[in-house]
């Protein structure tokens, strides 16, 4: 299979205006991925599927990742003159990474039996600009998986044929897989007449114990 650099170059030639960035992966798996800009997400997906060389006809896995706003610290060495002597001093540089949601797709080819090519799409933020193009029109296998991402992460997929909650119930409001999700004390709490009975019996028990 072609290297990720070659795929990136060919995408940028084939689709005018599309930009792709290679995301490094230093772990032993060395599965690097390609960050595609959302505006051309669908076109890139179609290109990857239909290209004669790649033929990535099979989307194995589609999933979401939540990256909340975080302060990243980077260490780097600076040369400073201290008391007339030049020394290397470590400095910390803090940068604020804006929060975003991410959809990750693992693509393989059943025809050519190669893969994976991993593509990522990122939203602008985690609140209002949380739209991404749906890749279900290209690979139908994403249908339930994108519904799941919508359900658990709150990414809205434009162009999805049937975007509803899939695992949580329809009236549910929040997105449970987000990092800052807070569980309610009781998911199914509803006031019932039984509450009064419990309260009464509790009060009754307290009176009894006083006597």
């Amino acid at each position: 299979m072609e290297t990720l650099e070659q795929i990136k170059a060919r995408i940028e030639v084939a689709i005018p205006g599309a930009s792709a960035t290679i995301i490094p992966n230093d772990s032993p798996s060395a599965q690097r991925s390609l960050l595609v800009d959302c505006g051309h997400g669908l076109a890139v997906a179609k290109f990857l599927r239909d290209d004669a060389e790649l033929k990535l006809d099979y989307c194995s896995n589609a999933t979401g990742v939540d990256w909340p706003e975080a302060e990243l610290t980077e260490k780097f060495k600076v040369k400073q003159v201290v008391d007339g002597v030049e020394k290397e001093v470590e400095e910390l540089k803090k940068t604020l990474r804006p929060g975003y949601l991410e959809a990750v797709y693992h693509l393989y080819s059943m025809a050519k039996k190669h893969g994976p090519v991993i593509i990522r799409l990122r939203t602008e933020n985690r609140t209002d600009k949380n739209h991404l193009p749906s890749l279900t029109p290209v690979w139908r296998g994403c249908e339930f998986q994108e519904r799941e991402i919508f359900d658990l992460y709150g990414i809205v997929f434009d162009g999805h044929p049937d975007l509803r909650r899939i695992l949580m119930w329809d009236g549910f409001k929040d997105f449970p897989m987000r990092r800052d999700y807070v569980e309610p004390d009781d998911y199914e709490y509803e006031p019932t007449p039984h509450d009064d009975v419990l309260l009464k019996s509790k009060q009754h028990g307290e009176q009894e114990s006083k006597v």
Partner: protein
Amino acid sequence: MSIVAEMPSKNFELLSKDGDGELLEIAMGPHHPSTHGVFRMDVVLDGERVVKLKPVFGYLHRNHEKIAEGTTYLGSMPYTDRLDYFCSLTNNWAYALAVEKLAGLQVPERAEYIRVITAELTRLQNHACLMGFLVQDMGASGTPLMYAFREREKILDLFESLTGARMMCNYMRFGGCRCDLPAGWLDGAKKVVAETPRFIDEFEALLAGNEILMARTQNVGAMSRELAINASITGPMLRAAGVNYDLRKVDRYGIYDRFQFKVPLGDHGDTYDRYMVRVLEMRETVKILEQALAGISDGPIIDPKAKLRGFRPKVGEAYGRIEAPKGELGFYLISDGGPNPYRYRVRPPSLINLTVLEDLCLGQLVADVVVILGSVDIVLGEVDR
């Protein structure tokens, strides 16, 4: 009698006329015995024909992925048993494989052999049970299912003596296996494997040419090759549609490149093909088991570099996948360098294979929905996670 007489007659009109254009909506499930768990299908019928079918999930949802983000890497291993509770050992393997990719661990040869043997035994009992359940769904109450369970019992006994548990095995570890084979286990396994072809023959003689089975399955729920690929169908269901894609051959994970076996393929992609592909796959599995049981040698069973405590993989991500009995089971992990995974994702074959359920059922009789669902082979613990 009087209750029936008092009911408004309009309802009966809906039910009585076949295909008159009036539609009837019914909810199959969540407590329908044919759904193999708590799973609902909202079916719209025209007469007895299905015109719309929407699967409804989530009754068993416990957010396995979120729980795994809150515990250590090893802490999720017993939890993977509960995904597809029929095949806990393949679940263990898929998770271990993903973590091994993430942390760069090497599995010793003996552990690889043990993994292949246990995974293939899992495949045998899964397929045997599936065939039993499928025939049970068609109305053959009892006998075939009991034959399948008799066979499964022998395999579960082997699992029990190896891992201490019959279903929730929790056996594999990152870089190897938890414990070595007990004395005499290999002989017991050889005996079970030697008996299996006789069981498959018996099962086939009983069912494969059965008139009712053929009438209920042939040309029922047919799926095209193109649809199967585009909808990310995997496992025996994909191969029944004629696509030659078996991860044991494609990825050659573990030591599958050492074994001689064939990949059975179907022609029509209908329910009968899905059934027969599994029968043939069991025969190939027996071949792999015979080779693995003959080839296993002594040695360590876990990578000495693997740490059970204080395990912190480097920052990065990995996707590992195996050919589980139900299809491609994948685990996608992102590490931020901490003791817990930052992101833990299960790619559930059961859920994704249901993508085409509506396509398979459209135009079929409502009684065939049960059979088609049975042939997809789902376990709700994995669908809902």
